C-alpha cells in the first residue's frame, strides 16, 4: 500500500507532545498546518464488510460503556453516534437497485473546524501540529454551540449528567503517547480504514482511483476539499451524500465564510471602537444640552428632571 506507518506514528507522537504543552491553535491559524504533519484516516467503502470491529474497538479503547439500547441489552448496537459512541458503521441500501454500501461515521477532524470556531471558551481545540480536534472540559460551559455548528453532527452531549461532557472521536490521542494508532484503524481486518499523514493518504487514495477506473463515485475523494478539507478522507462507490454522514459541502470552510461577513461588519473590531469614540463625542454635547434644558425647566416649573 506504500504507506509508512512509522512515519505516521512519528507525526502523531510529535502531535501528542505538542498537545501536552500549552500551545493552542485557533480556527484560523490552522490553515498553516503542513499536509505532511497532519494525521489522517482514509476509509474505503469498497473494502468495508460492515463487521463493526472498529465500533467495539473504539468503545473499548476509549473506556465507553457499550450502547446496547437497540438490542435490549444483548449486543452493542448504537443507533446513532451518542454520548457512548464515538464511531459507528452505517449501512446504506438502495431499495430499487440493491446497491449497498457501509459508511463509517466519526469526527472528520476538519482542517478549519466549525466546532473550534464556535467554542466560546476554547475548550475545543485543534492540535497545532497534527491537527486533531480535541475537547478539554476545564473551561467548557456546556453551551453546546459546537453541536449547532458542526456540519457533520459529531459532538455529542451527556444529557443526563450533572457534569456533562462533550463526547467525540479524538483520534485516539491517548494511544498516540503509547506509540499506537487509532483503535478503529488498527483493528480493521480489511484495512478499509487506515491512518497516516494526510499527504500520504491522499496519494494512496489517488493511486486507488487511478488503478481502478470507474470504481469510485466521480473519481472523487470526499474530504479533500469539502468544507475546506477534512483529515478523515473517504473513497466511496456510492454518491457520498446518500450515505448519511458525508453531507454535501462547499470548498470554502464555513468558519471562513462567517469570518468574512463578521470582518465586513467589525473590521477587526475597529468599527465598534471608532463608532463608540465618535458617538460619545456627539453624546457629550447632547448631554450638556439636555442638562441645561432640564435646569431651565426646573427653574421655570420647579419640576426636578426625571432621568
Amino acid at each position: 500500500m506504500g504507506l509508512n506507518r512509522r512515519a505516521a506514528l512519528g507525526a502523531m507522537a510529535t502531535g501528542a507532545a505538542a498537545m501536552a504543552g500549552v500551545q493552542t491553535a485557533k480556527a484560523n491559524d490552522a490553515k498553516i498546518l503542513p499536509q505532511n504533519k497532519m494525521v489522517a484516516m482514509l476509509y474505503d467503502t469498497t473494502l468495508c464488510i460492515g463487521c463493526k470491529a472498529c465500533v467495539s474497538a473504539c468503545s473499548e479503547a476509549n473506556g465507553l460503556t457499550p450502547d446496547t439500547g437497540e438490542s435490549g441489552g444483548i449486543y452493542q448496537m448504537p443507533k446513532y453516534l451518542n454520548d457512548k459512541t464515538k464511531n459507528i458503521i452505517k449501512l446504506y441500501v438502495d431499495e430499487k437497485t440493491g446497491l449497498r454500501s457501509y459508511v463509517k461515521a466519526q469526527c472528520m477532524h476538519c482542517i478549519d473546524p466549525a466546532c473550534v470556531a464556535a467554542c466560546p471558551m476554547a475548550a475545543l481545540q485543534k492540535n497545532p501540529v497534527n491537527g486533531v480536534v480535541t475537547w478539554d472540559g476545564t473551561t467548557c460551559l456546556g453551551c453546546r454551540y459546537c453541536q449547532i455548528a458542526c456540519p457533520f453532527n459529531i459532538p455529542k452531549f451527556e444529557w443526563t449528567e450533572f457534569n456533562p461532557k462533550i463526547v467525540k472521536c479524538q483520534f485516539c490521542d491517548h494511544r498516540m503517547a503509547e506509540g499506537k494508532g487509532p483503535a478503529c484503524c488498527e483493528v480493521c481486518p480489511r484495512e478499509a480504514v487506515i491512518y497516516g499523514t494526510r499527504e500520504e493518504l491522499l496519494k494512496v487514495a489517488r493511486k486507488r482511483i487511478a488503478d481502478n477506473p470507474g470504481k469510485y463515485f466521480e473519481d472523487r475523494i470526499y474530504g479533500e476539499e469539502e468544507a475546506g478539507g477534512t483529515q478523515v478522507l473517504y473513497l466511496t462507490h456510492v454518491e457520498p451524500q446518500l450515505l448519511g454522514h458525508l453531507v454535501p459541502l462547499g470548498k470554502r470552510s464555513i468558519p471562513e465564510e462567517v469570518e468574512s461577513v463578521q470582518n465586513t461588519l467589525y473590521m477587526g473590531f475597529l468599527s465598534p471602537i471608532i463608532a463608540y469614540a465618535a458617538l460619545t463625542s456627539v453624546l457629550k454635547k447632547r448631554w450638556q444640552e439636555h442638562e441645561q434644558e432640564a435646569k431651565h425647566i426646573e427653574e421655570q416649573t420647579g419640576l426636578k428632571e426625571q432621568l
Partner: protein
Amino acid sequence: MNAHWERALRVDGPLFTKWFWALAALAGAAILLSIYRTYAGLGAVTGLNDGYSWGLFKNFNVTTLTALGSAGYAVGVLVWIFNRQKYHVLMRTAALISILSYTSGMIGIGVDVGRPWNIVWVLDPSTWNRYSILLEVLICMTGYLLLGLQTENLPAFVERFLEGRYPETWKHKADTALKFVRRIYPFAIGLAFILPSMHQSSLGSLMMLAGPRVHPLWQTPMLPVLYLLMAYILGMAAIVGILMISCLAWNRPLDMKILGRLGYITALATMVWLALRVGDIFGRGMLPLVFKFDSYSVFFLLEMVLINVPGVMLLRTKWRDDPAKMYRMLVMLTVGGLLYRYVPTTIAFIPGDQYFYFPTIPELIISGGFIALAIIGYLYTVKRYNILPVPLTYWYAAQGKSTAP
C-alpha cells in the same frame, strides 16, 4: 383630547393581586424545576437532544425575546442619536423593559448551559476564543446589562431615597449616586447603543456558523443585519404595546401623539426590513423555494404576512389614531417578528431526519416561569417607582395627595 405625557409616576394600587400570585406560582415552579435540572441533567427536564441541542431557553428566551427587550435600545437611538428629546419621557419604561428582559434571558442561559460553574472562566481573557460569536454575545450582553442598563435604570431607583421619609445618610448616598450617574451618562448611553448593536446582530450571526443546517430561506449573510433591524422594530412594538396595556390596566390616559409617531417609525423600519429580506431572497435566487409550499415555505409566507400587513397598515394615519387598531397591528407585527427570530434557530434548523424536538412540559414551565419573573419585576417596579409616563395634571394630583396630611 390627546393627553400629553410629561412625567413619570408610580402606579397606585396593591402589588399582591391575583395576577401577581399566579405569575409567582409559575416562577416558583420554574425555579424548583431548574434546581432539579441541575442535579438530573438537561435531558431529564427538556426535549433537547444531540440534533436539536438548543431549545426554548436559548432560542426563545434569549435569541427571540431579547428582541422585545430592545425597547431601551430602540427608544434610546431615537432620543440620543437622533436627538428627539420629546420621547425622553418613555426612556424609563423602555430601560425597565430592557433590563428585565435581559436579566430573564441571562437566567435562562444559566439554566441552559451544562457546566454553569465554568462561567467564572469568562473573567480570564486567556481562555477566550476570540473567533467565537457566542463569546461576543455573552460578553456584550453582560456588559450591556451591567454598564448600560444599570446606569439607565439607576436614577429611577435612587431618586426615591431623596424623599422625606428616608434618613439623611440615605439621601446623601442617593445624591452621590445620582451625581455619579450624571457624570458617566454620555459614556453609558454610548455603550447602550454599541453593545446591543453588536450582540443583537451577532445573535443572527450565531446561526450563520450552522451553514447548510439552516434552511436557505433563512440562512444568509444578511442574518446579522436582519436580526438587528428586527430587534429595533420589536423593541418599538414592545414599548408601544406595553405602554398601551399598562395605561388600560391602570386607567391612565394614552398619549396617542407620541405612540402614533412611534407606530409610524416602526412601520418605516418594517418597510426597510422587508426590502432587505425580500431583496435577499431575490438576490440569492431563492424565490422558487418560497413557492414550494412545503412546511418551510409556509412558515416563510406566514412570517411575511404577519410582518407585511401591520407594516403597511401602520403607515396610514387612520390605523395609528385608533389605539385598538394600532394595538392589534402591533401584536400581529410582534408575532411575525418573533417568528422570524425563532424560525432559523429551531424550525428551519435541519440536524437530520432522525432528530425531533418539541419542548416538554417542564421545559415550557421553566421558559414561561422566567418570563413570569420579568413580568413580576415589571409590576413591582412600576408600582413602587416613578416609571410610567403621565400628563402633568396627574403628577400634580399625586403630589397634592401625598403632601396632604
